[in-house]
């Protein structure tokens, strides 16, 4: 048994929230053997990240350091972690389910003849890992098989990051130096950039009416726009609406769009895929209008109307207008 390792992700010089959620998941895994998880930070200068991790009540912090790891590349990260895993033979390696993890961990696992159980939402005895299937309409329970490490990645928002365990004291910090040759890194990433200039700030909107593919055509959008106007709300959308160019991308809510936390989020014809939910779950009150009673959006909604939006939305606009008079 050589334990559980959590790979923490650098977000502009600090460890991001979803990495702490991954640590929370690792703590659940660790509770059975009664051990503490270890953490891993990767980069070219990981001292500050390691210090941040060491204060979290973990057993050890491993700094995987190399000048060629300054910037994330799949080749660099896969190679470095592969060497560490072969040296250390961990039982479990836990990752946050970030875009970065999606980009390299499947390759890392495959290099070791293993597979990533991705986007895990719950862990129960066994261990059994639960993840969504069919865009959140069903759940699947997975078990690891064969020998070798088990790789899991943890869905954003599924595990509550422990408030603060800084009282537990500082963990031991160890440095691991992988052998990497510049020629092994085949991709050349450039500096990240923002898309279109952000002219609407959905993040501070108090009321949001969001529209999804249930609206069917761009020509039907005024229906929801009228409701938003009646409520004095900002209009937002799920990804397909922006993909189609029906609304600008700056109005997209979700993992690749904006994160919002309004008093009211009214979701019209939105199924509630996880990538959408992560952007709006923080709303104080969620109302969903959907014709499918089993749409996953109803799992997070406070109020739901099961019905055809083409009937419900105009009726709602009228009722709001009447109430406002």
């Amino acid at each position, binding site marked *: 048994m050589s334990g559980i390792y959590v790979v923490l992700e650098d977000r502009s010089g600090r460890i991001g929230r979803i990495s702490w959620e991954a640590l929370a998941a690792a703590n659940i895994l660790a509770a059975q053997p009664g051990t503490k998880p270890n953490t891993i930070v990767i980069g070219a200068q990981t001292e500050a990240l390691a210090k941040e991790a060491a204060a979290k009540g973990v057993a050890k912090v491993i700094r995987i350091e190399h000048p060629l790891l300054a910037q994330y590349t799949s080749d660099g990260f896969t190679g470095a972690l592969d060497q560490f895993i072969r040296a250390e033979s961990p039982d479990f390696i836990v990752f946050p389910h970030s*875009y970065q993890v999606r980009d390299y961990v499947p390759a890392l696992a495959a290099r070791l003849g293993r597979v990533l159980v991705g986007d895990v939402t719950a862990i129960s005895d066994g261990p059994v890992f639960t993840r969504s299937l069919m865009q959140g309409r069903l759940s699947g329970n997975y078990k690891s098989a064969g020998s070798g490490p088990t790789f899991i990645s943890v869905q954003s928002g599924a595990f509550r990051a422990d408030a603060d365990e800084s009282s537990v004291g500082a963990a031991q910090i160890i440095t691991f130096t992988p052998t990497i040759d510049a020629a092994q890194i085949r991709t*050349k990433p450039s500096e990240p950039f923002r898309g279109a200039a952000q002219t609407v700030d959905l993040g501070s909107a108090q009321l949001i009416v969001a529209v999804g593919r249930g609206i069917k055509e761009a020509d039907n959008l005024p229906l929801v726009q009228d409701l938003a106007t009646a409520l004095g709300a900002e209009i937002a959308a799920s990804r397909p609406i922006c993909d189609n160019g029906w609304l600008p991308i700056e109005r997209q809510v979700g993992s690749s769009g904006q994160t919002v936390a309004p008093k009211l989020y009214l979701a019209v014809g939105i199924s509630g895929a996880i990538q959408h939910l992560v952007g709006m779950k923080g709303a104080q009150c969620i109302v969903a209008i959907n014709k499918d009673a089993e749409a996953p959006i109803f*799992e997070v909604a406070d109020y739901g109307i099961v019905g055809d939006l083409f009937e419900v939305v105009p009726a*709602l606009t009228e009722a709001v207008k009447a109430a406002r008079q």
Partner: protein
Amino acid sequence: MKIIVAIKQVPERDAQVRIDGSGKWIQEADIQFAMNESDAYALEEALQLKEKHGGEVVVLSAGPERAGTTIREALAKGADRAIQVEVDDLNQRDALGAAQLLAAAVKQESPDLILTGLQSDDLGYGQTGVIMAELLGLPHASLILHVEKTDTGLTVKRELEEGWFQNIDLPLPAVLMIQSGGNKLRYATLMGIKKAKTKELRKVAAADLGHANAPAAVLEKITLPQKQKSTQIIPGSAKEAAATLVEKLKFEVRVI
């Protein structure tokens, strides 16, 4: 450029999915199947690259007999020929098992570029392209919205979280996983549908592609998701429900 596009047939988005008797998959009898959404974007990107640079677009799909209809749809949109890996237990294979089949099937093709969708709408592993790249020893990039051919290879636009993007240069041959929204999808024309019937569809049995590895992850059981919140469903006609909701928004949520 010789481009291979991996395409999966998945249950249609609005299909009512029910767990089957085994508890390990869904009842397939009365549901419609369609081309996986991000795979349709991968196909579109491939067709546009071919239009600009010439070459060939080859569709690759693993699945049971019925997947043939989705393959024909891709051919009708303009792909040149197709390879189908015939496999009936794809749902029980893990992401590595599925990618192994696809990688084995394209090995002799030696393509310049392999495109896959980002994630399937059914099992949602989101790993096929990345694992294929690893198995074939090729560089890769995922979450790609735009592909530009350069003198030395490709420059691709990759989506990052929260509205950020990044350009990446990589040499060919390579594997890209395509995200939705980068292009506008085309429809198949009548002419295309006619032509598709005459295009080559080569079938390969999964068993002929080498031994299947024992799975590293096993889907043991499918269940209904656990509710996180207790949603108050507002009953009545559209008008009644709207009136009740406005009352709630006024007096309970206090936003009107």
